[in-house]
C-alpha cells in the first residue's frame, strides 16, 4: 500500500574558502551520498535543494524523514568542493519549512 512519505527540512551552514554555486553544492552532496550509500541509498533520500544563499552560506535541504541520518552523515563527510576546503554543518532539522525558519531565526 502506498505510504505518504514524510519530509524533513535541514538548515545548513556552508563554510568555504571561496563562494560556491548552487550546482557545485548539490553535486557534492549527491556525490557524497553515492560514495557512502550507493545508488540504492541515494534513491531513497528524495533529496531536494529548497534554498541556497551563496553570500552567507545558509541553505535549506529537503529529504525523506527516514533518511535524515544518511543525508546528515553524507553532508558531514564533505571536506572539499572544487579542490577548495569546505565545512558543511547541519544547524537545525525540522518537519516543516515554516518551523525550520522560525527555529533558525531564534538561533541567530
Amino acid at each position, binding site marked *: 500500500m502506498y505510504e505518504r512519505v514524510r519530509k524533513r527540512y535541514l538548515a545548513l551552514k556552508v*563554510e568555504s574558502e571561496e563562494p560556491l554555486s548552487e550546482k557545485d553544492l548539490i553535486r557534492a552532496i549527491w556525490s557524497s551520498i553515492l*560514495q*557512502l550509500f550507493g545508488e540504492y541509498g541515494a534513491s531513497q533520500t528524495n533529496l531536494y535543494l529548497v534554498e541556497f544563499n551563496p553570500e552567507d552560506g545558509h541553505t535549506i535541504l529537503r529529504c525523506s524523514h527516514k533518511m535524515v*541520518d*544518511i543525508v*546528515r*552523515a553524507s*553532508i*558531514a*563527510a564533505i*571536506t572539499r568542493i572544487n579542490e577548495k*576546503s*569546505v*565545512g558543511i*554543518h*547541519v544547524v537545525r532539522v525540522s518537519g516543516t519549512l515554516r518551523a525550520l525558519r522560525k527555529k533558525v531565526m531564534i538561533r541567530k
Partner: protein
Amino acid sequence: MRKFVDLHLRPSIRNLDQVEQMIKRSFDLGYWVVGIPLPSNIKQEKIRQLKTISENIGADLVTRVDLSPKTSSELLRNLRHVRRKFEIISVKCNSKNVARQAAKDRRVDILAFSTRFSRKHYFDTAEAELASKAEGALEIDLTSLLFLTEFPRIRFLSNLRKEVAIAEKFKVPIVISSGATNVSLLRGPCDYAALAMLFDLPMSVALRGLSENPLRIVDRNRKKLGAGYVAPGLFVVRDVKRCMNV
C-alpha cells in the same frame, strides 16, 4: 541537556590564534568540554595560558597527553612521569605488547589504535577484556573518515566496525572524538553521531560516546588529581589539625 565533549582537538600549540579559533568553533558547535593533546614536557605557565583562552570562550579545557611508546617498558616509564601532570592519558598502541600493557594499566584512560592499517589491528577480544577490567576506553577519531576515499575508507570502516562490535561485547566505553587539525574539519556532535552509523554504531551509543563516556573519564581523573584523593573511594575530607580544633 546533554553536555558534549570533544577530547581530541589537535591544533598547533605554538599557534595560539589557531587554538583559540578551534576552541571557539567547537564551543559554537555545541561542545562544552574540549581536550587538546599537549607535549609531555609542557610548562605549567603554558597550560594556564591555554586554560585562560578556553575560559574566556566559555569552554572547559581538558589537558591531555598522547603517548606513543615503542615498547611496554617505555610506556611504564612515560606513565610514571606524566600521570599526575595531565587529566587524560591516551596511548597510541603501535605494537601488540604496548597494546596489552596499556589495556591492563589503570593509569591509561584512552586506547587509540591505527585503524588504517589492518595489520595493526590490536583491538581484539583479549585486549577488550583487559581494557574493560582496567576501565580503559576505546577512542575513535573521525577525521580519518573524512579524509579517506574509496578503498582505504572501505578498509577503515570495516576495521572500525570490528572494533566497535568487540568494544560493545566487552562493555568497553567508546569515546568519539574529532581529531581535527583545523577548523574546517570540525563537525557538530549530531553530525559525528550520524557518521558513526557508517560503522554500525547506534545513534544512542554514539551520542553517549560524545558525552557521558568522555565526561565520566574527565570527572574521575579530576577527582583523582584533586588534593584530597587517597585511593579509589577514599578521600581526605578534613585534615587532622582541623579535626583536633573541632
